[in-house]
């Protein structure tokens, strides 16, 4: 194992856009985005279940795409856009996915929920009318141990309908 004590390491500093706002953060350079979000920026909405890319709990959007924050070096995030569950609501209003997840039982313990929400958001951003199969595929990297997924699929579909209605209703 590494013998050089961590205490001798210099900190790194980067600036990136977190949930639409520029942040500067200094951190130990061995840290992944997950650790920096949770430990150095106090954004504990992003969870972790393995830190090895085997569960999807830590998913965030990096430049709009779902990635696993446990496998992204924070050093690689300089100048990039990161979206976490904390950034899903807009102007003080929950994202339709958040509303439908809360209403329809898609969040039981709520631990895998943040990763699923951002992944579902990326899906709906890219494809406003996904089929059930496309939803299943898009969420196949997020383990949920509580729900059996069905209420999650339904919540994504319900959000899709709400967003489409809103779109149509817009002038």
């Amino acid at each position, binding site marked *: *194992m590494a013998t050089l004590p961590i205490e001798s390491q210099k900190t790194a500093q980067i600036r990136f856009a977190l949930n639409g706002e520029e942040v500067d953060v200094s951190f130990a350079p061995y840290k992944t985005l997950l*650790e920096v979000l949770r430990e150095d920026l106090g954004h504990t909405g992003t969870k972790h279940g393995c830190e*090895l890319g*085997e569960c999807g709990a830590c998913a965030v959007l990096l430049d709009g795409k779902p990635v696993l924050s446990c*496998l992204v070096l924070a050093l690689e995030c300089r100048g990039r856009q990161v979206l976490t569950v904390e950034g899903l609501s807009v102007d003080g209003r929950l994202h339709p996915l958040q509303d439908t997840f809360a209403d329809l039982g898609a969040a039981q313990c709520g631990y895998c929920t943040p990763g699923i929400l951002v992944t579902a958001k990326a899906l709906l951003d890219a494809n406003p009318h996904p089929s059930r199969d496309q939803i299943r595929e*898009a969420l*196949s990297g997020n383990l949920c141990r509580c729900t059996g997924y069905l209420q999650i699929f339904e919540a994504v579909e319900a959000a899709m309908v709400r967003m489409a209605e809103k779109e149509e209703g817009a002038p």
Partner: protein
Amino acid sequence: MMRLPLFEFRAPQTLAEAARILDGEGSQAMPLAGGTDLLPNMKRRQQVPKTLMSLNRIPELHQIDLSDAGTRLGACTTLSEIAADPCFRNGLTALAQAASCVATPQIRNMATLGGNLCLDTRCNYYDQNYEWRKSIGFCLKKDGDTCWVAPGSPKCMAVSSTDTAPALMALGARVRLASRSGEREVPLTELYQNDGIHYIKRQPNELLTQVILDSSHGWKSTYWKLRRRGSFDFPVLSVAAAARISANGVVEDARIVVGSVACLPLLAAEASKSLRGRPLSQDSIAEAATLAARIAKPLDNTDFDMTWRKRVTAEFATYALRELRGEDMRGERLLLRRHSSSLY
């Protein structure tokens, strides 16, 4: 929380700079692309490089060139880019299929083609945390002296688990390796060797920069993967097959590759040869499938029972060849993959 060990971080902006760094640091440095293989390995202390060299700022590695003559893919092309791009259909379907069933959607957004080709060999005795490996006295591949899969073996038996390599081998791909002293092109069939530790002939100072495919005009290809779940899992058996079939249905050329049953993807040469000059009939498919299955020697170091993996190899080869013949195999696909996709 699993933590990375300490490392120096380098982020070169050009290939030349990257080559210089690798030349200076040798095996102490490891290139970092998607990070989905290397970073878990580092957290488990299977790999502890002194230097991580990020490839993400080198524009050439992200280029895709398509022409009638063939395709050139920068090593940092992500697997989701490949899976999503309609260019990778018809002759190149096997590549798109392979890329689309690696791990999970998030991982495919990160993982790169070059990374998947260089994927570290895997083993149930090796892909474990430091503490677990300590409790078995480590293994031949890392820190120990016994291969627990085959304790008499002088050689590590970790298994090649890449999805894209069997597909690209079936498609006759070559890769470009660059170092400070120059570049070389290697057919993918010659990149790997049957040793779980030294599974790849890339030198520590070399960077895999590009995948080169000749025109796939007239070819058809397909990729079949066996794993427990609809996503996440590495293959425990895979069959890639490509064939050029004449207008009257005779196989002019064919390549069958069996993956995840040895330290390297195995080109089933005899099986491939047996098809040449024959139509894809029930008999020729059965013969080729039997020949392909013969070379599969799965060991007890992945998910699933190894004798069962061996046993279903011929089945999988049959499905692949039947699909090339034009049969509708979506039923089997759906059953085994538990997912319908436009790629199939």
